[in-house]
């Protein structure tokens, strides 16, 4: 049996881990932006950096039949960007793939 007091404890362990998703509670923000005309963009921010976003975007592009990209942002880390209004699709897909729980998803926009 080990004595807990003697264990080394890194007080910054979780701080360094949660640095790249801007929010403290690990929410995945799904936003929509209007472009010219009826066109829209869907952005997914806050996915954990443990996942390979490039693979995710590749799967999403195929699944939703839209184009998409991964954008590196100094503050928000890697952000998924998909063409068109994919908010419903991405919500379902993320929960189905087990990348995020439904209560972690936060959908913004109208």
């Amino acid at each position, binding site marked *: 049996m080990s004595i807990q007091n003697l264990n080394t404890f890194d007080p910054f362990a979780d701080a360094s881990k949660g640095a790249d998703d801007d929010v403290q509670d690990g929410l995945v923000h799904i936003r929509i932006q*209007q472009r010219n005309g009826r066109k829209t963009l869907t952005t997914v921010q806050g996915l954990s950096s443990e996942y390979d976003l490039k693979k995710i975007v590749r799967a999403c592009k195929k699944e939703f039949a839209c184009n998409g990209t991964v954008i590196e*942002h100094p503050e*928000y880390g890697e952000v998924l960007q998909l063409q068109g209004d994919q908010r419903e699709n991405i919500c379902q897909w993320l929960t189905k793939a087990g990348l995020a729980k439904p209560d972690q998803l936060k959908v913004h926009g109208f």
Partner: protein
Amino acid sequence: MAEDEAFFDPTVKKKKKKKKATFDVDAALAEGNDNLDGNVISGENESAPTAEDGDDNNADIDLDFTKQKKKKKKKPFNTDDLESALNEVKDDNATNDGGNQEDELIEDDFDLDFNKLKKKKKSKKKDLDEIMAEVDEKTEDKENVDDNSTTWLGSDRDYTYEELLNRAFEIMRYKNPDMASGKKQKFVMRPPQVVKIGAKKTSFANFTEICTTLHRQPKHLLDFLLAELGTSGSVDGNSQLIIKGRFQQKQIENVLRRYIKEYVTCHTCRSPDTILQKDTRLFFLQCETCGSRCSVASIKSGFQAVTSKRAAMRAKTA
């Protein structure tokens, strides 16, 4: 688009008129859904055409017409069920409880008990006779509950969920007669007036008015709207909000609903009678009704993708 809105409006009004008496904030909280929901419901609305009398501005909007619609539809047979169930309870009480509970359970299968009780409250508004009848029933009911408890004492069996729930609600209603009579504070506000300006801009005409009804700083609501919609905008000279981009009334309604859920209604008691204070860089929601105080999320616009022409941006900066 215009036709859509025109169709959407009258139904809204219709519902408004009908449902003025009901309390909505809880439904608003429960809602949080998309316009899909609203569309479906409005589609099945029964008698829309009469409402096109253009009192757009005067009518008050309920925040959530959808839920109430559903509730209302279910009401009639439910009260019947309830009464019959109560009668059964009375009749069979002396003999044996097992049978009638099964009946109750079967009747309740398709509907949550919670709803049922709510409906009961609402139906009371219908007419005085019913009220009196129900009051009588309730008193009898209470006796019933007591009887039940005494029978339970003897029989040493487990209580069913339904029994306990009924009992809890009976006690609740007995202690708070105000709540039982459905006099909860309703939260009614006018619909946002959203008008297109040209091809690329939208005007939110009664923006400041809505801010005053919500008792919020225009700046706070403005920040929220712009962050949620992911656009830019400003309040112009005659106190209307000009937003870049094309938005419809129902879309703005959705965002407003979300704002109210997060920043206006108390998270504990759902009362809209709250004050938003800024305290050490955090916003706190102080409830005037129940006195609770909780922090609310700060407004962040988050990641914004580049949607304008990059060449134009480069020309501007260079």
